[in-house]
């Protein structure tokens, strides 16, 4: 699996780059670029329903599951990437 390889030598920048097309697809914006500082207040179209879609797509594609409290305190994409790092490292 290509994803697995990338992950074993993973850096946060890699996951962030992997997420770019996913965010573009889900938010339906072909030219979108997200950064670690992106969040629902500074990205157009990132409403509560889009948020569910984003989380669900990430869970599906990385085969991880966020527990009920993990997502509450996340302030931006950077913190999400950090959380994914931890989850993927302990998978």
């Amino acid at each position, binding site marked *: 699996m290509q994803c697995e390889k990338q992950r074993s030598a993973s850096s946060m920048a890699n996951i962030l780059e992997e997420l770019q097309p*996913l965010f573009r*697809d*889900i938010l*339906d914006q072909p030219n979108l670029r997200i950064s670690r500082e992106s969040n629902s207040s500074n990205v157009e179209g990132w409403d509560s329903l889009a948020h*569910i879609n984003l989380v*669900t797509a990430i869970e*599906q594609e990385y085969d991880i599951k*966020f527990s*009920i409290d993990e*997502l509450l305190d996340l302030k931006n994409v950077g913190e999400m990437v950090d959380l994914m790092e931890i989850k993927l490292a302990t998978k």
Partner: protein
Amino acid sequence: MHLDACSIQELFRNKSRLRRQLQNHSCRELRIAVLRGSTVNEVIELAELFLLAEGLRCTFYESEYNKYYEEAVIDSERIVNFRPDIVYVHTSCMNLRGWPPLSATESDHEAFVAAEFSRFQQIWDSVQQRLGSHIIQNNFELPPFRVLGNLDSIAYGGRTRFINRLNLEFANQAVHDPRLFVQDVHALSAALGGRNWFDWERWYNYKVMTTPAASLALARSLTAIIRSLYGRSRKCLVLDLDNTLWGGVIGDDGPENIKIGRETAVAEAYTVFQEYCLMLRSRGILLAVCSKNDEETAKQGFEHPDSVLKLSDFSSFRANWEPKHENLVAIAEELNLGVDSLVFVDDNPAERALVASQLPMVAVPDVGSDVTQFIPALEAGGYFETVNTSAEDFSRADTYQANWQRALLESKFRDYREYLDSLQMTADIDAFKPVYLDRITQLTNKTNQFNLTTRRYTAGDIQKISLDPTYITLYGKLTDAFGDNGLVSVIVGRKDGSTLHIELWLMSCRVLKRDLELAMLDELVARAQSARIETIVGYYNRTPKNTMVADHYLRLGFVCESQDSNGAHSTWRLQVTADYQPRCRTIQVRDSVHT
């Protein structure tokens, strides 16, 4: 664009793009109001895609979260203004309010069911009075926990019992109400399993009740119901032949070697798929063949004695070497249907891909190449959904029923003879035929209990015997009111002057106590008479497993000629006389050509 070929990840991730691509179809407009008990955007977005692909463009209205009752019954202004064609009430067991207490008595239980039912009936009544639209109402998945364990489905205070009962009440209502359609969430959730149905993290965080897989199942089933409401259900199942309706390649292997019947695991799986197709036909779905084959060779497959489907079951038959998408167009024209009425099943992914790309309106489920997965794939698509059933749909009676019903039947009869008569048994008893040699060999090697000599034979032995005129061979197949038991009994007799030595007599235990051994004896005697045999000699060789047939020959009226002191070996004799009276009265033996 073929949604059937998309994985669940692709569907979820590319919803927006897929919707844009499908918008170009010429569409009929539909307005659907969703009265929801949880967050159902996922279901709605997926259903929107599937319906677009079917040429139905839907505009949705969603009630406020968990205001499904209020917006229908109390404050209905918004939904009335929306003027929906369809109202979809989507709730789950998490929305039920009137659970009976664990201590409930029978009358409590009745009262709680009536109260909860009445809450939903008010919704339906209100919708019908104010809007007159179709109503699609889910029934309920079983609850996520059962504090009473198995008793939960039995005790009057059990939630499982409560839901089972409520679901039955919904069905009873829908039977009489032409505007009300029940979405069978109980069955959908059971098929996926409760653990794969509820999504607790998403429930607590977002009030999304179901996993993505469950949302997909809900969307597909909603699509199927709506398609059916607007006359867009599929009408014809088009089937490939080799490795789809039978195992093997008929042109290479020969018609007698295709895998069909009950004799091997693979053959049985194909037989069950044929039976499924036949059941679809008996509820009014047309069957057609689209196969790359020589036509005459292809047709021989349905003359195989074990083929459930017969040539006459097909409304159109195209076996040739033309591209399949061209044949599908020809089939649709012949049957006076649109290609959008067709569902195409083929084990070959290349053929499926070709048809999907050339004829996007044909449904091409991803059935894979494993026959055991064909039925689940067809069921998941909901292609042949119908909102009601009419007498005309059932042009043929179902004959296939489960084995356990035999036992049920048995208890109702005055005596055993009456039971046997009720089974309406017919037998096919004849000399070994090439098509059955594998099964016969298999039986000689695995039958231990009803086996008089327990002699084992190789496939080569059996073939030699079948061709050797010094042998009289018989196989017995038994069919009864519940289905075909397949080839279940074998006799090998060797002629020696005017004597016939029974070297092998066996029967599968699945047809014990059916008098099939009497029918076999009658046929054996008839053939012995033709062959001028005067004496039939039977042998019993005891093994640790075959004591059930120690007195087999005694019961058939043979005379004991010799017996060891310990009864391990015995020899039995029957004189063949011209006035032999057939012993079997309960099985009708099909006429066979004596050779």
